[in-house]
């Protein structure tokens, strides 16, 4: 893992001091709310329905056991004993007191963490493949470049007041677990004909009110030019992105208005002035950062262990992924127990995962954008013991990638922007599909739920997407079908009129039944939909509605 140097540590400590002073001035009346709000948002502090909410940055979703223990401590000491892992691989605490926020930031700084740039019109926390560094077939660990981008973008003076927020995601494999095509910039590592590693640069993707699949602006960008090219893109966006209309301010709107050819021409022109300059990455600097991410394990011939308990086999079937180092496995920890709040973890669970990570995964944990956790370095010989440890904390739900592994934003239960609840819809669906046999029969199918059009729950890219809307004070839910955030990115299509809150579980169950009736052998939901179109789903879904 990356460790802060003196500069990083000084920066976060200075920020704590600054924010402590800003909070004191606010409480003393020296700053109005209008003056203070942008300052608190720069430190991830929102005012939500019930209290202040603190969004803590987890850079590219990588945490140490020490950091996770600290998050558990903060959740217990300053909040209500739990936290919510988000689709941006961050952690949100929902019951924060303004007067205690500086103390929380000080505690975070003790473990090289902060909440800087988790809000505001700046470059947000860079997200990455949760299997970074351990995925089979990976070209390079995307966290090396995520960290380089983090350092470049943190408090970048030119990009602190962009037209709108800006999100970057990176993957190092062909398989896309980072949703790179629905980000403002997506970076996909690839090799050129000479075998050199670099990036496909994708620009102008996004969800929200206007879902857009990003377009490739450069097929191959050599690694040393990563920052100068990003700077060129950001400069064009910063200059031409709309600041007069909140809903048209994201880069996706600019790229669509200009067209990708013209946007590319402008970026390349800007880049011509930057190429070869100070932002060129020396190989020595790439190597220095890469050294932090060398896997701490070596191949082992130690025999893989198993457990005779049939529940172990069920867990191993869905929650383990192949590791690039022999004798090891990637372990997914589901935060989607039946009826649970997707992404929520209690302080006790966080501490348990930290302890298990320390014991079995070299003290490292990953947070996924699908609101689960990962232990990246587990010896196959340790899997049964780890499974029992997870089971004891209710963290061994064997449903990764299945229909009950649902993404849901906080929705109207917590969020000031939401129009409808998302969490209870997820809970009802997870209970509806609780039978594991049924889940395996359905197969891989992603349900994603957002409580408003801002789409924090990624509903546009769910095989079944659910969007909460407000109709004359009542919660209704629009269902989209056929979305995907992987290497076959697609935006789902609205199947028909919205459903009332109580009707959603039946509607989703009906859609799943229709799929199971119509699918050909081993055909995925999206493949079935692509073959048949929306019509049969729509016809049968609304036949009795």
């Amino acid at each position, binding site marked *: 893992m990356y460790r802060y140097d003196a500069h990083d540590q000084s920066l976060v400590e200075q920020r704590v001091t600054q924010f402590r002073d800003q909070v004191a001035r*606010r*409480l*003393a*009346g020296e700053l109005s*709310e209008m003056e203070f709000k942008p300052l608190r948002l720069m430190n991830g502090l929102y*005012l*939500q*329905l*019930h*209290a*202040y909410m603190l969004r803590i940055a987890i850079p590219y979703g990588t945490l140490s056991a020490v950091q996770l223990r600290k998050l558990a401590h903060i959740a217990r000491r300053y909040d*209500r004993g739990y936290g919510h892992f988000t689709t941006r691989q961050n952690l949100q605490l929902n*019951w*924060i*007191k*303004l*007067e205690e926020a500086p103390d929380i930031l000080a505690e975070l700084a003790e473990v090289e963490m902060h909440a800087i740039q988790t809000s505001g019109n700046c470059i947000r926390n860079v997200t990455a493949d949760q299997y970074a560094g351990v995925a089979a077939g990976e070209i390079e660990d995307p966290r090396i470049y995520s960290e380089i981008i983090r350092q470049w973008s943190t408090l970048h003076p030119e990009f602190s007041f962009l037209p709108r927020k800006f999100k970057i995601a990176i993957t190092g494999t062909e398989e896309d677990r980072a949703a790179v095509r629905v980000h403002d910039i997506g970076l996909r590592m690839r090799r050129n004909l000479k075998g050199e590693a670099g990036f496909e640069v994708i620009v102008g993707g996004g969800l929200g009110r206007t879902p857009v699949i990003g377009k490739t602006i450069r097929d191959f960008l050599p690694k040393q030019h990563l920052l100068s090219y990003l700077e060129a893109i950001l400069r064009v966006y910063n200059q031409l992105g709309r600041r007069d209309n909140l809903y048209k301010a994201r880069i996706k709107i600019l790229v669509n208005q200009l067209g990708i050819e013209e946007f590319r021409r402008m970026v390349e022109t800007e880049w011509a002035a930057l190429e070869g300059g100070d932002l060129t990455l020396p190989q020595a600097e790439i190597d220095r950062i890469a050294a932090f991410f060398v896997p701490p394990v070596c191949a082992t011939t130690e025999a893989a262990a198993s457990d005779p308990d049939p529940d172990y086999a069920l867990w191993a079937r869905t929650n383990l992924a192949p590791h690039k180092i022999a004798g090891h496995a990637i372990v997914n920890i589901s935060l989607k127990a039946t009826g649970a*709040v997707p992404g929520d973890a209690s302080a006790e669970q966080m501490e348990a995962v930290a302890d298990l990570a320390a014991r079995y995964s070299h003290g490292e944990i990953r947070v996924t954008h699908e609101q689960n956790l990962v232990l990246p370095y587990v010896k196959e010989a340790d899997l049964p013991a780890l499974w029992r440890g997870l089971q004891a904390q209710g963290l061994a739900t064997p449903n990764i990638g299945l229909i009950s592994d649902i993404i849901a934003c906080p929705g*109207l*239960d*917590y969020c000031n922007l939401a129009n*409808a*609840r998302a*969490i*209870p819809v997820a*809970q009802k669906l997870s209970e509806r599909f609780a039978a594991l046999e049924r889940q395996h029969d359905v197969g891989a199918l992603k349900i994603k739920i957002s409580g408003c059009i801002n789409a924090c729950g990624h509903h546009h890219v769910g095989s079944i997407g659910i969007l909460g809307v407000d109709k004359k*004070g*009542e*919660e209704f839910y629009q269902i989209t079908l056929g979305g995907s955030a992987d290497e076959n990115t697609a935006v789902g299509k609205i199947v028909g009129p919205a459903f009332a809150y109580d009707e959603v579980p039946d509607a989703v169950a009906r859609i799943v039944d229709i799929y199971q009736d119509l699918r050909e052998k081993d055909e995925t939901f999206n493949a079935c939909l692509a073959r048949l179109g929306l019509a049969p789903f729509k016809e049968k879904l609304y036949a009795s509605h």
Partner: protein
Amino acid sequence: MPLMVLTANRLRDGEVIYLAQDSRWTESLQEALATENAEEQGRLSALGEAAVEALELVEPYLMPVCRDGDNLNPVSQREIIRAAGPTVRRDLGKQSEQGPSEHV
């Protein structure tokens, strides 16, 4: 005019509060001062702005309520959740509290 109460979030901790009789702020909706009178609603709004200046709260606004016997109930789902707490965690928020509410 619809029946309205004035609500806001307390500055120090973000707690949901309502304007009660005697210009007090309360955490309990049941203690809120509700009025259909437009002039009175204007007076409540002015008290809210004064409380902002006095650093008691942020973002005051009038919200519609309805009476059910002696109870005041919010009209919108958003305000129902603000007045009670998350529907998915009945152990949290005002709904979890026992005994009399605490005034600010």
